[in-house]
């Protein structure tokens, strides 16, 4: 079973990398780009076969290590 984890900065937390990417895209001729927020994507392979259990395990991993919940949100997607 595989899990995909998206980690993003919470609203209101300054994202200087996202801002730099936004400015670079404007400079490259993409004026339609609005706000850019950069995050992390982590893919995990799990031995667990129960989808609900796998999801709760990965959520525990997010809280323990993968995300810093002071500044980051996470979302977990589990698939076969």
């Amino acid at each position, binding site marked *: 079973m595989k899990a995909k984890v998206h980690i993003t900065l919470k609203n209101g937390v300054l994202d*200087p990398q996202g801002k730099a990417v936004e400015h670079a895209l404007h400079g490259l001729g993409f004026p339609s780009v609005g706000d850019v927020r950069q995050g992390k994507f982590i893919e995990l392979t799990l031995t667990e076969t129960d989808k609900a259990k796998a999801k709760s395990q990965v959520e525990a991993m997010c809280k323990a290590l993968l995300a810093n919940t002071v*500044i980051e949100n996470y979302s977990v997607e589990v698939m076969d």
Partner: protein
Amino acid sequence: MKAAVIVFPGSNCDRDVAVALHQSIGAAPTMVWHRDTSLPDLDLIVVPGGFSYGDYLRCGAMGAHSPVMKEIKKAADKGVRVLGICNGFQVITEAGLLPGVLMRNRGLKYVCKDVHLKVEDSQSAFTTKYSVGDVVRIPIGHGEGNYFADDETLKRLDGDGLVAFRYCTPAGELTDDANPNGSQRNIAGIFNKSRTVLGMMPHPERLSDPKLGGTDGRKMFESLVETLS
């Protein structure tokens, strides 16, 4: 004073701080490897600067879950003083010994220079040799020193007098220009509630000897020796 310096793979200020401690204590501190699962009897634990575990995932995140960190937490609970410098500040913050988080610098760049700090406390074991309002010169060298905490935490830190140092001008003014990394409220270092744990981005060990160009950092080690010996 019995002191230990924690060594992670990627620590690079462990020897520097050991030299500074040796000078002030008159004896060498114990160097403790990150995999160790026991600590000797100690008065002070230093979590040094560097790039523990290559800053993988987030700076300090892997170090915060290393085997020795459980022992550091236990010792901190008993009142053993813990000093986290630079990456050490990031590690002990990730480990939950201090609130908040160190984010990427506002200007995105790694900043390596001397900065001025306003001393906000002279009561802790780390700061007795300083006076409140002193302006000291201490070097920084970091890409992720932008202190962030929610408003409630910031109010509590200020209300309880738990901010140890703030970035300031040479004249002691807390301006935005004097803030090298975008830290909220110009925060350069904070204490835990009991003022037994201090985390700071600047490196006192880098200006702790006249041969290094200054001694403003040495007072911190002398404070610790005076209080804990």
